């Protein structure tokens, strides 16, 4: 916690102002930690803090209660200053049971505050968490400020009037804990009370129980004399405007729907359920009133084929998946390259290879996205930087796909997909229209007659008289599109497909540098590492270091000026959540001796990790 001036006592205890706080809620996967975290997030956003979140949950639907693999957590970083990551280390850990304590303790800095639900520290639970002695009693927590509260008991006392069975009232204890944290960080209860009213409409007893638990936790903070101080986090100086909280996957959903409206063209999304991409399917399935068609296909290959068929039929065809699914889509994506149809593939990357760590993040599908097909098959590859950027990037993906008649792969990841941040809502009028053109002059029509500027072939749609034509995976003759095995034609067509994608570099923004445009060290990033690396670079510059940062949203083609930018620095460091895929590309493309900072732990970078690496290089 970064503390500032002591404030006068306003309520029962002294109130202290802090700039930024990181809280981690951890409990059993049935304890409602994701809900608790998201309510805390929403309330913090509403009162004007900047926020960033990191949900972390087990791959198992419901691991045995109280076990180590069953621990679910939600970390939120909120502050009055620029917040770009969910925070390096928690200032506060709320541990609802021994397993949660055991799993998360190694992440805590010395002196961190640990709130434990003592009721859960039974011999049985301690055994499940593989504790040999009770950590609350054996002195092993001496480095931390441990706050022991019998949350289950206190919650049960608060709800003793409730007519609900005990099992149900016990489930309200997460709201009791939330209420306590609201008191501790001076948050209003109203946003969550509003939410409870909406969520349990028609279930008055449940609504009442949850609201009572929340208030009881808050009051306990006030009168329980457990805390000597409580804290205030001022509003961040956030640009004025209308905001909503958005996760990367929600932003992809909204981006797809927005693209459909901006292109005045219906959207068809085909997908096979896969973590962490399924939310995009769930989200889009709710927009049928806007003409969105969603197909839950039999497999990943089918999803890609359905999206491609929809693109042929004149829709915005899009599919979404995660790494193993992208591997399956490869053959069909090659067909998209050959038939030059506008189709968008969203890859919410997760840790690999194979099934890997399904619920953990990684950015190791870059080379798969770029090259994972037979033959020379260039596709456009884009990557969002933040959860909210997922919205803009998917609109950009469709703009490029439609304008150039190319498949576009968007590389999000689990960290962006599930993480959330406040998003300043754009105005529809300020968003770029997507210009969809279908040929209307049958005379002289040829399916592979290209626009000389973009090299795009015409998008002639079945159902339009006079444009009947055949396309397919076998090499096509330049212009006529007839099946063609001529060696010179294959050379020409291969080069045309490549040149078309390379040419898009003229239609995208140049690489922009944060910090000095020349200097000792350049940090080069892509995708979800943006927040941590950007913050680390800022801190390094504040310490007087000559550190620039370039973040790539376009991975193929690269921005035109990238080579020149890279050559402005003594050293180039590429932090990635993989073993060096972008570094590999940069080295081969620009013949620059780029260094890597590579973390494949299923977890995003921490600011201090990057800062330490910067120190190593300067």
């Amino acid at each position, binding site marked *: 916690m970064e503390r500032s001036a002591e404030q006068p006592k306003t309520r029962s205890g002294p109130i202290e102002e802090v700039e930024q706080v990181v809280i981690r809620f951890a409990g059993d996967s049935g304890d409602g930690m994701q809900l608790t975290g998201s309510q805390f997030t929403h309330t913090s956003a509403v009162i004007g803090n900047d926020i960033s979140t990191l949900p972390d949950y087990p791959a198992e639907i419901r691991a045995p209660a109280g076990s180590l693999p069953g621990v679910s957590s939600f970390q939120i970083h909120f502050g009055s200053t620029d917040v770009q990551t969910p925070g390096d280390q928690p200032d506060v850990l709320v541990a609802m049971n021994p397993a949660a304590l055991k799993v998360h303790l190694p992440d805590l800095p010395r002196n961190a505050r640990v709130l434990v639900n003592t009721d859960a520290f039974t011999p049985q639970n301690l055994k499940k968490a593989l504790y040999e002695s009770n950590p609350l009693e054996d002195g092993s927590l001496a480095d931390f400020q441990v706050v022991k509260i019998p949350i289950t008991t206190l919650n049960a006392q608060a709800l003793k009037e409730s007519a609900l069975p005990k099992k149900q009232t016990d489930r309200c204890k997460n709201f009791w804990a939330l209420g306590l944290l609201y008191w501790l960080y001076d948050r209003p209860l109203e946003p969550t009370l509003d939410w409870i009213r909406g969520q349990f409409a028609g279930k008055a007893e449940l609504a009442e129980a949850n609201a009572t638990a929340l208030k009881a936790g808050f009051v306990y903070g006030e009168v329980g004399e457990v805390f000597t101080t409580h804290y205030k986090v001022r509003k961040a100086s956030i640009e004025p405007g209308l*905001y909503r*909280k958005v996760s990367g996957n929600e932003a992809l959903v909204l981006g797809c729907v927005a693209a459909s409206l901006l292109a005045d063209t219906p959207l068809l999304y085909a997908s096979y359920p896969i973590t962490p991409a399924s939310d995009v399917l769930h989200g889009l399935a709710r927009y049928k009133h806007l003409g969105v068609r969603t197909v839950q296909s039999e497999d990943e290959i089918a999803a890609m084929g359905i999206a491609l068929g929809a693109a042929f039929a004149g829709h915005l065809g899009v599919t979404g998946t995660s790494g193993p699914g992208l591997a399956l889509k490869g053959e069909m994506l090659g067909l998209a390259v050959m038939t030059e149809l506008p189709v968008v593939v969203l890859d919410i990357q997760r840790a690999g290879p194979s099934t890997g760590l399904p619920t953990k993040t990684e950015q190791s599908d870059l080379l798969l996205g770029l090259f994972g097909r037979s033959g020379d098959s260039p596709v456009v590859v884009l990557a969002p930087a933040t959860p909210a950027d997922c919205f803009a990037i998917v609109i950009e993906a469709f703009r490029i796909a439609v304008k150039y008649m190319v498949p576009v792969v968007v590389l999000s990841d689990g960290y962006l997909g599930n993480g959330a941040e406040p998003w300043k809502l754009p105005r529809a009028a300020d968003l770029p229209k997507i210009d969809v053109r279908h040929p209307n002059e049958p005379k002289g029509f040829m399916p592979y007659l290209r626009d000389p500027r973009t090299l795009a072939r015409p998008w002639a749609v079945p159902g339009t008289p006079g444009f009947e034509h055949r396309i397919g995976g076998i090499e096509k003759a330049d212009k006529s599109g007839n099946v063609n095995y001529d060696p010179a034609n294959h050379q020409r067509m291969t080069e045309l497909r490549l040149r078309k994608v390379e040419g898009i570099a003229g239609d995208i923004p140049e690489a922009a540098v944060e910090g000095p445009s020349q200097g000792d060290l350049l940090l080069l990033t892509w995708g979800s590492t943006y927040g941590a690396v950007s913050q680390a670079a800022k801190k390094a510059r504040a310490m007087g270091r000559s550190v620039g940062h370039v973040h790539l949203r376009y991975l193929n083609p690269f921005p035109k000026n990238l080579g020149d930018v890279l050559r402005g620095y003594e050293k180039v460091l590429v932090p990635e959540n993989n073993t060096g895929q972008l570094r590999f590309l940069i080295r081969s493309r620009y013949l620059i001796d780029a260094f890597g900072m590579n973390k494949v732990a299923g977890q995003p970078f921490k600011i201090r990790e990057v800062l330490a690496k910067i120190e190593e290089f300067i």
Partner: protein
Amino acid sequence: MSEERSAALSRKDFVSDQEVRWCPGCGDYSILAQTQKVLPSIGIPREKYVFVSGIGCSSRFPYYMNTYGFHTIHGRAPTVATGIKTANPDLSVWIATGDGDGLSIGGNHLLHTIRRNLGVKILLFNNRIYGLTKGQYSPTSGLGKRTRSSPMGSVDYPVHPCCFALAADGTFVARTIDSDTKHLAMVLERAARHEGTAFVEIYQNCVIFNDGAFDSVEKGDDRAVHLVDGEPIVFGANREKGIRRKDGALEVVTLGNGVGEEDLLVHREDEPDPGIAFHLARMDAPSFPVALGVLRSVRRPTYEEMVEEQIRRAREEKGPVDLDALLRGGECWEIK
């Protein structure tokens, strides 16, 4: 194209300018010719036809049709067709596939397309061999089939395409043969007019790698039975034999000696239970004649109809939303 112009369509309108490159004598020619002959009579304008195919000899089909066409990849034609038909239910979407393409590499997609009752026509050219890869056994080749990849005989049991389609609850399942052009045209026309998935197995002779595979069906009057809706199942040169149901199974009976047509199984295309159609589809030499014709034809809402209905209902319930309203759909707050 207007309906008037479509009314004047002829076979020639469906012939593309591409040179047909199947082996001389291939059964595919007959299927192509009958398709081109039947389509002008359906009343759908030419630009509304889309032919989608996978890989194999049969899958060159779209190039020879002067309609919209998409030659996709091995086994995946049903997926691309699903995208096309779901996006635009107004199109008449046809899938040309083979026994290997449809039932081996593409078996999964075929299953799901049929069980969804997607409004597409699936023409499965069954020559019981891999032609384009030069003569390996296919999923419909018989046990013991000697080929280049099974020199001692195949040890794979074959799949029966129509049984597969019926097991997937196909709403239109038929079988025909390339050499009987009239029958082929009749079945194609029935398929074209079916609403929902029309699955047509076409026995198709591969002159190079499996010549004469269906001789037993073609030669000899008691080797095939032509199913006619509402009529008892009779076959033989003098219509002297029939199919009777006994103890839940089928048997061949000879008419006379107290067995009359009234004892025979009456074919019902719209029988709700596909069980009898399944038994008919399995009939094979030497004990039974092979059943040709429409095994099953029932009406059931199609996939695309239900998709469109949900869109219509959602529009009615939620009304139109502009982009600004869409973005503000979540819990918003104002920073001043």
